[in-house]
């Protein structure tokens, strides 16, 4: 393993040294292909982000794939109804590893304005692990670009080996999560507790 100071010294002399991990992460973070689907009004902002004015292509994310088999990133853009939630989880399951999720907008984070309603899922992180959350109703394209850059930063920091190895590389990390079923009143189970770790509410 080459140390950082030597690398900087070599770079001054015009010699660029890299490692397998850096090269791999550099390639991955600059070619994040999102899954092409939108759920509600946030999808309009996502479309605007991909179009020419905001131009997601600058970050290598313009290749929206119509099939989960080719997608790296799932942008949950909008209100997830309880009717839709099993399909979202199934699509996530069908994506190949490594896969990332951006939870876009108040609805995808927590149910948003529909949180008190009977038919909206109170956050997609109840069933699948989320990497980046963007608040907003809907978030502006700049916010989605920011989330994209955050995700790129995360990918850049993922280690190939060692103790802090990236989760998706570990043998026992699941690639699929159980798909919720329609119950009598709610989805069964209402949340996957292996994934869903809500912060404890401290009451004074």
């Amino acid at each position, binding site marked *: 393993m080459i140390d950082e100071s030597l690398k900087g010294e070599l770079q001054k002399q015009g010699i660029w040294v890299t490692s397998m991990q850096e090269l*791999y992460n550099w390639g991955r973070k600059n070619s994040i292909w999102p899954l092409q689907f939108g759920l509600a009004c946030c999808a309009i902002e996502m479309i605007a982000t991909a179009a020419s004015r905001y131009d997601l292509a600058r970050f290598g994310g313009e290749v929206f794939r119509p*099939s*989960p*088999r080719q997608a790296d990133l799932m942008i949950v853009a909008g209100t997830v109804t309880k009717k839709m939630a*099993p*399909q*979202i989880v*199934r*699509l996530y*399951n*069908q994506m*190949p*590893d490594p896969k990332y999720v951006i939870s876009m907008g108040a609805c995808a984070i927590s149910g948003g304005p529909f949180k008190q309603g009977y038919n909206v899922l109170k956050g997609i992180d109840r069933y699948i692990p989320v990497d980046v959350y963007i608040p907003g109703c809907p978030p502006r394209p700049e916010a989605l670009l920011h989330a994209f850059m955050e995700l790129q930063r995360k990918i850049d920091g993922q280690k*190939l080996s060692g103790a802090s190895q990236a989760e998706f*590389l*570990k*043998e026992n990390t*699941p*690639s*699929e999560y159980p*798909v919720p079923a329609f119950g009598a009143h709610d989805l069964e189970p209402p949340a996957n507790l292996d994934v869903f770790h809500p912060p404890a509410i401290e009451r004074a």
Partner: protein
Amino acid sequence: MTPSPYFFLVVFCGVAFVFPLMPLILAWLWRRFFQPPKPGPAKNATYECGVESLGEAQIQFQSQFYLYAIIFLIFDVESIFLIPFAVAFTGLPFGAFVAILIFLFLLLEGLVWAWGKGCLNWTK
């Protein structure tokens, strides 16, 4: 000794074969040594926009659909032929007139047959 003029073609074919294979081999090696394979029942399932797939892909359509084909021919294709016939009506020679009458008669016969068979009855 000058190389055969086809020698470059052979080199070109070789490069054309190896060049696309290289990334595939690299990707396979990467998967083999770094990425643990994680297949699963949902991941390997048929992709149907997230909905669970039902039944088989090889389903049969009933042969009764030929009736729709015939009625489509009578009402739709006939009108396409009738418009140029009507436009050129005054300048038509006798042979063409008879030919189009025969065509109309054949379709009319099909209409009578379909009518008699009860295909035009609207089923509730």
